[in-house]
């Protein structure tokens, strides 16, 4: 079943085309990877999907519903969760509160009922706390549940951000460079987490620079280059695609020799 469908997206910044008629489809229950050299338009595409920015033309469908003009919070209410390239946890809250805040959308109660601490608010708060601890347990963060989120090490903060996105029970999870800044061991743990998430029925759409990880976990990979989609298919097919090799090799020889092997 089709979960996310992007049709002919165009986005320009000051006359420079960041995305040029990009069309993509994400099937339900799969892990889709998005790769491309720096400046290829990957993050722009993510911003358009999550609603932080609006496209100049083109349409985005989620569960066969046109979400092109929706606000970010409306999109996430429909079931699109995300993490950020630059870490965005709430450092002024404890670890468990971060997760519980991720659940807010599913909890009942408005200003008045919360202020009066009505019985069902107490019940739902207790249930939320219990559920949040279970999520923390699955991420291996339960030992630190009362610490301030800003006091966790970077790798754990990344995991916490993932946990927060999971706490809202998304159907589609957008991961924006989850492995950046992590140690090899942490990347391994992260890959396991992502596979686990897929088994629970969540569709994952992942942008990543770390080729090893993305090739290992993704079912399908799309390659962006200069705002255009140049290849799409299984990891093996993409790896052998001459256009992809050229895009990466061209970059590698001139500007960025450190780019990883395909």
């Amino acid at each position, binding site marked *: 079943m089709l979960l996310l469908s992007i049709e002919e997206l165009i986005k320009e910044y000051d006359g420079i085309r960041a995305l040029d008629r990009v069309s993509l489809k994400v099937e339900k229950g799969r892990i889709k990877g998005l790769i491309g050299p720096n400046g290829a338009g990957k993050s722009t595409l993510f911003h358009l999907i*999550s*609603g*932080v920015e609006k496209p100049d033309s083109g349409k985005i469908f989620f569960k066969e519903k046109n979400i092109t003009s929706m*606000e*970010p*919070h409306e999109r*996430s*209410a429909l079931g699109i*969760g*995300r993490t*950020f390239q630059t870490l*965005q*946890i*709430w*450092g*002024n*809250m*404890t670890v468990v*509160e971060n997760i*519980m*805040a*991720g659940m*807010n*959308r599913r*909890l009942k*109660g408005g*200003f008045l009922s*919360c*202020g*009066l*601490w009505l019985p069902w*608010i107490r019940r739902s*708060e207790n249930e*939320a706390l219990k559920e949040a601890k279970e999520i923390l347990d699955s991420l291996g963060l339960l030992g630190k549940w*009362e*610490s*301030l989120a800003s*006091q966790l090490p970077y790798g754990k903060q990344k995991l916490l951000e993932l946990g*927060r*996105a999971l*706490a*809202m029970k998304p159907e589609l999870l957008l991961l924006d460079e989850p492995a950046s800044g992590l140690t090899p061991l942490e990347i391994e743990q992260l890959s396991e987490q992502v596979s686990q998430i897929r088994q629970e029925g969540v569709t994952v759409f992942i942008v990543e620079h770390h080729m090893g990880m993305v090739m290992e976990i993704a079912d399908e990979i799309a390659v962006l280059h200069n705002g255009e989609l140049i290849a799409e298919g299984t990891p093996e097919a993409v790896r052998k695609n001459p256009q992809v090799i050229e895009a990466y090799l061209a970059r590698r020889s001139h500007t960025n020799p450190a780019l990883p092997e395909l």
Partner: protein
Amino acid sequence: MVAPLPLPTGERGRVRGSNLEIGILHVIARETMSSRTAKVPQTQFRKRDLFYLVPLWFISLIAPDPYLYHKKGFKKKDIFYLAVICLAPLIWSDSHFHHLMVLAGIYAILALGLSLFMGYAGQISLGHAAFFGIGAYTTAILTTRYAVPTFLAFWASALTAALIAHLMGRPILKLKGYFLALATLGFGEIFLVIVRESTNLTGGVIGIFGIPWFSVLGFSFDTYLKQYYLAWGVVTGLFIFSKNLVRSKVGRALLAVAASEDAASSVGMNVSKTKLEIFVLGAAFAGWAGSLFACIMSTASPEAFSLGFTILVVMMVVLGGMGNLYGPIGGALLLTWLMDLLSKYQEYSLPIYSVILILFLIFFPDGIGARLNVRVIYLIGYWAKKKKRNKGKL
């Protein structure tokens, strides 16, 4: 000479148990360590220790622990505070004190509302006095012109303030930081101009006189003592409401909006709606405070709601400590008391007042609530060590 141990910084969440208990442990550790390094035979227990350990333990019973406010509900300390509030006017039965505390209570309501908006949601408002004024004038006009009972006017004031806040907030809250501060500042000034110019409705610069005492079902709050219980009863009610709010999903949404709006909307929180709601709630608090103020002072005139007053309330929130609910009440008490104390120095009062405020901001940058514990421990520990060192030299 012993290198000083790092101060107990009391980072929220990392410490379990009271901040002060940790501090006491620190003092004990420092004492024992210094005596070890100085190779003084260790004594079991000195009477001198009682000097600071007993008072410290006592302070730990009464001082609020702002770092733990977020996860616990109400604690035994809150009952202690309530008892103090109930008994203080009976023990200290002096009408000047009562009147001062009534004012402090009204300011505390105002500061509580503003602290939700500033300390939790991380926004800035410099127009809060306007909502206070709207509350006061609503009560004044309804009671003197239309003979509405004060109890109904009390609710109408909050409703009017909330309504105007809703209308104002929609466009204004799209702004951030300094721009929001300027916009709210402008709103406060516009309110003053309107009040001064519309003489028919508000009485212009002279204001409205003869507002009746606050009364509920025929019971009139006509003495300072009764007003004390009225004002602090409202403070208690609104405090409980706010405390419930910040420990529920609403509190988490506020903190989330303050820390990262992008992340907040990524989990389905409506950021602008959250900001608007808390702005409206803060305005309703201010409306209630204004209504009480009008009834107790029996007048409403524009100079009471000027920019200076807004700054005073912001100072109460900042001095008391942002991001906890005990802070604004403490700040309101402190500043009301300070202004009263300094009023006898007349023309010197303002410079002294400013110097004291600056000193507070230097030595208690996170607010008195957050730092007082640590400072007291530090000072006492320092004093004890100094005495010991002098003794060793001799």
